[in-house]
């Protein structure tokens, strides 16, 4: 187990600020729209139809949202599997981001399911369809949410002064840490397998047997990107020193993952003869290049050791990678997904507002918890000259 240089400590500070109030307001709007959705049905607020039976609530909130929540998984992989203890200070903040991302992704599925009251059937063995990719994803994500809350519970127990419980739990923590690495590896790749079963409805740019690996690789890579982004935002927002040393080393790991990913993706497209699709004059090809730009840009920006120490480049790379990963999921599940002539989908404003509300709730929860619980490494407050 890794030792920590600095013990994490609650950040303190005001909970009611213009930012938190705005975030709460956005979350409130989403709550009202969801109330309408549950009273009048899913058709009253969304643009989904018989041709496109899911929209951004699934593709952003679940597919992309859970990938963005892979920070905890990606860091745990590095710290516990590859035994890189120096990254340990990043575990708790990354885990907190993941906790919110996944919990809300799980909740979003309920919003999107037409007959949400049947959700429990999945977990009732006699009624479960164990041959379904969806079953694997659903059970795995649900388990992982539980595992993450347990992984994160020491932060609560420390705050509540229950060191006795914490000690008992720590004897068994290795089990949950193991599961916490295993489960996302399973369901992040299965999210890609979901696309394989749609067959020719998916454009050849995204329909490949490599999808499970593509989704897993991008989930890990974007996990590091989100940790970098969180670190940048924390430094700026909470007036903390930027952890340049740690982050630049982390970005090298991310850089290598990206290079491997891009080689794999390029070769796969060439192998299947799908590159021609990328030069068609249509929305899908355009969208493909936006996606690829998101993955290529960080490789260029972070190529040299000096560049990896520049906070602005790290930030832009992280954002580019997040955009690329989002586009990969959007492309696969919506833009490159053609269900037949005449069917269209474009998210409605209420759908967008719910997604925005969920993101706002995640950020709000993160701010509140880092101020209240011991998550970020303790540092002396510094005065920043603007």
């Amino acid at each position, binding site marked *: *187990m*890794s*030792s*920590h*240089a600095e013990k994490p400590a609650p950040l303190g500070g005001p909970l009611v600020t213009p930012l938190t109030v705005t975030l709460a307001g956005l979350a409130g709007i989403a709550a009202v729209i969801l109330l309408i959705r549950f009273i009048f049905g899913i058709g009253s607020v969304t*643009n*989904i*139809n*018989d*041709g*496109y039976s899911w929209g951004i609530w699934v593709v952003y909130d679940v597919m992309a949202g859970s990938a963005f929540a892979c920070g905890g998984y990606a860091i745990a992989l590095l710290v516990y599997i590859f*035994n*890189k*203890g*120096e990254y*340990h*200070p990043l575990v708790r903040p990354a885990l907190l981001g993941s906790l919110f991302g996944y919990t809300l992704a799980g909740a979003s599925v309920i919003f999107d399911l037409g007959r949400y009251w049947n959700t429990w059937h999945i977990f009732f063995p006699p009624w479960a369809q164990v041959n379904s990719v969806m079953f694997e994803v659903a059970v795995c994500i649900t388990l992982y949410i539980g595992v993450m809350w347990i992984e994160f519970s020491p932060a609560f127990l420390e705050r509540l002064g229950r060191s006795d419980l914490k000690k008992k739990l720590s004897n068994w923590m290795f089990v949950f840490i193991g599961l916490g690495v295993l489960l996302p590896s399973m369901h992040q790749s299965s999210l890609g397998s979901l696309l394989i079963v749609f067959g020719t409805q998916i454009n050849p740019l995204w329909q490949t047997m490599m999808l499970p690996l593509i989704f897993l690789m991008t989930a890990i890579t974007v996990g590091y990107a989100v940790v970098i982004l969180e670190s*940048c*935002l924390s*430094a*700026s927002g909470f*007036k*903390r*020193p*930027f*952890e*340049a*040393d*740690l982050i630049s080393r982390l970005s090298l790991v991310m850089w290598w993952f990206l290079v491997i990913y891009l080689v794999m993706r390029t070769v796969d497209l060439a192998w299947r003869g799908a590159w021609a699709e990328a030069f068609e004059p249509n929305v899908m090809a355009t969208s493909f290049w936006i996606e690829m730009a998101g993955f290529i840009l960080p490789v260029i920006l972070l190529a040299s050791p000096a560049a990896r120490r*520049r*906070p*602005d*480049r790290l*930030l*832009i790379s992280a*954002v580019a990678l997040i955009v690329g990963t989002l586009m990969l999921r959007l492309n696969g599940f919506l833009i490159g997904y053609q269900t037949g002539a*005449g*069917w*269209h*989908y*474009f*998210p*409605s*404003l209420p*759908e*967008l*507002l719910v997604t*925005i509300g969920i993101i706002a709730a995640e950020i709000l929860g993160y701010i509140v918890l880092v101020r209240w619980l011991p998550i970020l490494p303790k*540092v002396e407050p*510094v005065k*920043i*000259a*603007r």
Partner: protein
Amino acid sequence: MEITDLRALREASEVQALENRLGISRRDFLGLCAALATTMGLPAGAEAAIVKAVAAKQRPSVIWLHFQECTGCTESLLRAEHPTLEKLILDIISLDYHETLFAAAGHQAEAARKAAMKQHKGQYVLVVEGAIPTKDGGIYCKVGGQTAVNMLKECAKDAAAVIAIGSCASWGGMPATGPNPTGSSSVAEVLGKTVVTIPGCPPNPYNFLATVVHFLTFGKLPEVDQLGRPKFAYSRLIHENCERRPHFDAGRFALEFGDSGHRAGWCLYKLGCKGPETYANCPTIGFGDAGEGNWPVGCGHPCIGCTEKGVGFTKPIHALAELKSVTPPLGFPGVHESKGNRFDFTSAAALAAIAGAAAAGTAKLAQNLGKGTPVETGSHKDSGASS
């Protein structure tokens, strides 16, 4: 049973001999045996066993009795257009007595039956077509002065297997429908034991043929349900495999013969289709060898439930079926669903605003991050060593 690959049998001598015996090509014969194995849902390899059994074994003697019926079952077998089926039905089996197909007549015919029963005692297959009148000592149906009840009991005594073909023989069928003046009964009721039944009006010839070939190949009749019906053919509701089922699930029903829904091929449930309460494989194998969709429901007429006791000839054709496996939902989706819009102006504007704000925020942050914020370095350098 020795089971070989079908392809290995192409050059087998007994199959080649069969070519001459039946006057059909080997290709057609092997194809038919494979189709029969598939109809019965038998495992791979069974088709080869069927080929060997049909080609090599001695043909079983079959005695075919006709009682209260219309000869529709026999007609459907004879009119099957599958390559040379009529040849096979006469050549796979040795049909020693069949009133419709006999060249002989009168006492000569009855003598042939008695001779076959004596010669193949305990080995012949008895097929019964038609119900048996039991009222007033069974006087309402006689052949050669002998009552149907009497003749059935006589023939069944030494039979290796008894197969009741058609709904009349299986459960009484049309003659047994109230008020049933002749006391028509099924074979099972008269013999007081369960027999294999192939109900239908008429039954699908392949269900009968598959049953006979199963007997020939494996020496026993196929697995049956509690009513004696072979499970390979009668274990599923018509509703389960009906090609119009998606219309049922979507709530699209024909309400009158010739209305727009009927012409569009929608579900016939509301016209009285008995598919939801009738067990048979009609939708999967069809009738008349005329290809996909050639069966009553496929042609636009509701199923009358001819295979099912208490449904066929009992319930009015227009009466609604009792739903056994599914109940329709309380609400149905609209027939003309919106196909969605390519573009939504307000949400596109909102998306653009978000993207713009995110880009501006990132740019601003990137600009400030390097300058205003202290950059922490070196403090974690040694922590890795202690991990």
